[in-house]
């Protein structure tokens, strides 16, 4: 149809004539859709990479683990497995000795960690080690002092092949390689009673079974067995048989049977994907919404410029729907351009995102292929967006009477707005100084539209940067709470419960490096196990302990002290009762019981895992007179490191950590978010700049006739420029303030909903740092204020006669 060709050509010309604006809209859309595509691609990457990595190393299907501290003879667990009715389903089984240890090494390296000793039978490994540097362990290493160090641990502590390490008990080991194993892809905390760990501060060393037996002084002993099943084997059936076999074993084997799904690293690596995706989806949507508003702002202007031609079309009797075709075609062209650019942006955005993940989650295999379906989704969104953006202005333009649309000159300049009301309000100085303020007030709709465009960009920026602030503030609160007194203390965890007056406590107390010592208990527990199931680490602090939690509500004793976040999640307050599942000591060992405890008070640590009991209330635990943690203050002139080094030689010491190390551990928990948010913040910054800049230059264009009149009267360009800057700064300030407010609201909403879903264990409260607020203000106002400067060249070259003739 020839007609179609005409309309297409016509809108194509519109596009070419306004190419800077069009490119800007397209870029804004591209940033929105590209971010969406990039952020959401990460979910698929992580799933694929997890699958590949866990498969590569034959991650165990079932694991038998003896309680901490106990062992059995080598071969006994393997025999139990071999005796199963469906033993044929087992592809491979490996006995191990996994022991907590302290590791000292080159430089001042001194960390808590564990030794993982696996038998070196021929055949496929279970929970194999993927060697990244140096060499793998072979049969020749059986019993020798060779270890493969966890890749991240080695990397962050600059361990190289050939590094010498000393572990608890004094054994010296040589690093012959660096590698990764599925259970330790990431270190999640919980090990050695330490809730927050980093791979820098927690070392995992893989060695032969006999090497570890020798180092741990447990010759011929194992405490763990891992096995894989043949493809198609029924895991539940084998698990049931194994569980039964362990129960009837003589002498008894009180072993824990777990599956692959119970591996912390496995669970966290998969679970995080969903949670994070929620967060990224919101960030991506925010960017998209910002882009939508911005493009609406721009398209409105374009359509308004076509107002008169639409009117002429109406006068010529062109049906309304056909008049809509041209601006809509214009929108379609922007959409296509935006999506094409968006694919490029998506690709570009995915590079830093990939780097963040690859750097953050050390997997042996990273698969980051282009996610066609995610990009297709983004493309659809990108195509719809400009139509949504252009629909409203087109609708408005088509509603007017033709005669109004055609009207030119002074009659078209209909008065509206608030200027008349405010004609009494005068800015001091020359009369024309009133113009910027009046212009802002005279066209409130346009002012609002511009301000809205800027606000939407700033909202997105403030939200993303605000998330960083919020995480930072959360850590600061944790840090303030944990370091408010005795920051030099060292928290020492023991691998078993030791009598308060026993050898271990006395040995530590008598170390010359140790100034004072407080022995206490740290008990893992679950509050409301049938409902919310909030994991707790309950510390029983001795009376008069140097460090005590701060109270925000209630009493320090008479019951449980919970984190505010835990109380909120459990829906309890001071004085309420809460069911707690916890271990209790009995004559025959530890068993799990439920006790109803009263919430005595609340403490402000945002990490909800921390809970405290006073010694009297701790009687319920049946652990009176024993300790499994100690808080040690270094002696005069000795440092925390001296204490930790000395503790290396003490048996039963599982770990020794300063509160600062725990805080660093928390920090890494949030680092992945921080990394991604940094990328997102950068994108939104770009978006904000682009939007602010374009909105402003459009606003400047709209004033071209007034500017020409001023120039014709001999006002210097710089004065005209200054007045424009004043006008745009007013609007920019309005938009920026709105954006900061909007950002804060979105942030609060996200903290209350998404973030508490994604990070339930952390109590975050929305907070914006002064830097963010001031930064956003400066950015918003400066960008719009400076934007007119970029029109300086154009203004100097203004063809005054033609600018004046615009409407004539």
């Amino acid at each position, binding site marked *: 149809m020839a007609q179609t060709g005409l309309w297409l050509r016509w809108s194509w010309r519109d596009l070419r004539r306004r190419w800077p604006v069009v490119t800007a809209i397209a870029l804004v859309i591209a940033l929105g859709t590209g971010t969406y595509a990039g952020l959401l691609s990460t979910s698929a990457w992580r799933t694929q990479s997890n699958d590949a990595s866990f498969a590569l190393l034959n991650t165990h299907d079932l694991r038998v683990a003896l309680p901490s501290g106990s062992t059995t003879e080598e071969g006994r667990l393997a025999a139990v497995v071999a005796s199963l009715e469906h033993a044929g389903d087992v592809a491979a089984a490996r006995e191990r000795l996994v022991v907590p240890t302290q590791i000292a090494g080159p430089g001042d390296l001194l960390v808590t960690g564990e030794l993982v000793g696996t038998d070196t039978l021929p055949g496929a490994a279970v929970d194999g080690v993927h060697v990244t540097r140096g060499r793998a362990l072979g049969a020749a290493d059986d019993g020798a002092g060779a270890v493969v160090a966890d890749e991240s641990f080695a990397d962050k502590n600059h361990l190289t092949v050939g590094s010498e390490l000393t572990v608890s008990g004094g054994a010296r080991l040589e690093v012959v390689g660096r590698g990764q194993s599925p259970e330790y892809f990431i270190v999640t905390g919980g090990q050695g009673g330490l809730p927050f760990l980093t791979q820098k501060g927690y070392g995992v060393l893989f060695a032969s079974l006999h090497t570890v037996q020798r180092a741990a002084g447990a010759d011929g002993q194992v405490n763990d067995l891992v096995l894989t099943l043949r493809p198609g084997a029924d895991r539940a059936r084998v698990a049931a048989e194994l569980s039964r076999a362990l129960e009837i074993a003589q002498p008894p084997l009180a072993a824990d049977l777990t599956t692959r799904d119970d591996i912390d690293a496995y669970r966290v690596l998969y679970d995080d994907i969903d949670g994070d995706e929620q967060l990224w989806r919101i960030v991506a949507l925010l960017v998209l919404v910002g882009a939508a508003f911005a493009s609406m702002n721009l398209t409105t202007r374009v359509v308004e410029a076509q107002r008169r031609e639409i009117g002429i079309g109406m006068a010529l009797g062109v049906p309304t729907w056909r008049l809509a075709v041209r601006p809509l075609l214009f929108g379609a062209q922007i959409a296509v351009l935006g999506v094409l650019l968006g694919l490029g942006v998506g690709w570009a955005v995915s590079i830093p995102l990939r780097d963040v993940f690859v750097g953050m989650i050390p997997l042996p295999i990273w698969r980051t292929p282009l996610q066609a379906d995610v990009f297709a989704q983004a493309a659809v969104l990108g195509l719809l967006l400009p139509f949504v953006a252009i629909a409203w202005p087109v609708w408005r333009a088509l509603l007017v009477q033709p005669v109004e649309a055609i009207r030119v000159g*002074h009659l078209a300049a209909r008065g509206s707005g608030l200027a008349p009301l405010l004609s009494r309000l005068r800015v001091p100085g*020359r*009369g024309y100084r*009133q113009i910027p303020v009046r212009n802002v007030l005279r066209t409130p709709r346009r002012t609002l539209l511009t301000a809205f465009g800027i606000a939407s960009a700033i909202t997105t920026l403030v939200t993303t940067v605000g998330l960083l602030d919020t995480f930072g503030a959360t850590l600061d609160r944790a840090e303030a709470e944990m370091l408010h007194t005795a920051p030099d203390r060292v928290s020492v965890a023991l691998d078993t419960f030791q009598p308060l007056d026993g050898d271990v406590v006395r040995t530590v107390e008598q170390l010359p490096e140790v100034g004072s010592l407080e022995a206490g208990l740290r008990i893992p527990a679950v509050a409301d196990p049938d409902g919310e199931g909030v994991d707790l680490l309950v510390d029983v602090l001795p009376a008069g302990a140097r460090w005590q939690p701060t109270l925000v509500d209630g009493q320090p004793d008479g019951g449980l002290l919970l984190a505010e976040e835990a109380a909120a999640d459990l829906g309890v307050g001071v004085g309420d009762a809460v069911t707690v599942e916890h271990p209790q000591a009995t004559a025959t060992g530890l068993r799990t019981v439920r006790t109803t405890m009263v919430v005595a008070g609340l403490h402000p640590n945002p990490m909800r895992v921390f809970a405290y009991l006073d010694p009297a209330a701790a009687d319920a635990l049946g652990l009176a007179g024993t300790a499994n943690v100690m808080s040690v203050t270094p002696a005069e002139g000795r440092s925390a490191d001296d204490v930790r080094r000395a503790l290396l030689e003490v048996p039963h010491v599982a770990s020794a950590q300063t509160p600062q190390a725990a805080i660093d551990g928390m920090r890494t928990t949030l680092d992945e978010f921080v990394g991604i948010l940094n990328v997102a913040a950068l994108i939104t910054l770009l978006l904000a700049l682009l939007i602010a800049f374009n909105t402003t230059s459009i606003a400047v264009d709209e004033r071209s006739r007034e500017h020409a009149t001023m*120039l*014709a*009267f*001999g006002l210097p360009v710089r004065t005209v420029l200054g007045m424009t800057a004043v006008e745009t700064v007013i609007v920019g300030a309005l938009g920026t303030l709105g954006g900061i407010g909007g950002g804060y609201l979105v942030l609060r909403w996200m903290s209350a909903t998404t973030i508490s879903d994604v990070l339930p264990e952390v109590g975050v409260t929305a907070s914006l740092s002064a830097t963010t607020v001031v930064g956003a203000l400066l950015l918003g106002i400066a960008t719009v204020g400076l934007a007119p400067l970029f029109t300086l060249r154009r203004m*100097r070259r203004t063809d005054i*006669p033609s600018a004046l003739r615009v409407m004539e």
Partner: protein
Amino acid sequence: MEGVAEPRPAVDARAGSEGTRIDLDGVCRYFQVGDTVVKALDDVNLHVDESAFVVALGASGSGKTTLLNLIGSLDAPTAGTVRLAGVELTTASRAERTRARRSTVSFIFQSFNLFPGLTALENVQFGADVAGRDAPETVARQVLESVGLGDRARHFAHQLSGGEQQRVAIARALATGNPILLADEPTGELDFHTGVQILELLRAQAEAGKTVIVVTHNREISRVADRVIELSSGRIVADHRPVGGPAAIADLHW
């Protein structure tokens, strides 16, 4: 009424003997439009050194606006020289040209170009402000009064009729105190009756000592001029003074 040929002294003290001189020598202004060159002005020589009511007459497209723009230094010629109050505009710096505009000429546009954000009074004050006059508000009030709009001071452009708007525009030009007024089709958007009022106002300025150059395609208007310059296809084809002096404005009709 004074003799048409006799130059009148400039009213503004700042404009000395050179103050109102306009000299165009061999001025050409060509526009490249696609493949063709449009000769909007072609070898125009024009000298105005008197305070008078000068009408440039020509059909649409004959180059009238271009001529006015060159005089007002809104535009630069392709060839030839333009001097305004003794300042050679063609070689002047940007700042000098801006200053010339600020202190010598004042524009009155066909479509008024009032600042929509300013009241009538403020628009007029704009002129006084730009020219750096003392007590600009007082000047503005007086000038607005003199064009008969003292009671419209607080109105915005959209609250005024076309004729009122044009009178505000004239007041704005007058408030600068500049000796030369350049008016491009000042009655083009107005009805006959209002148009005549505007002409009267402009003529009065010439009688008060200003040089007023009005550009129009309306031959009637040229009857009331002291001097008529006829343009056709970018050339001056006639430059004469009406025989027997200008007609009375009351005699006009179109």
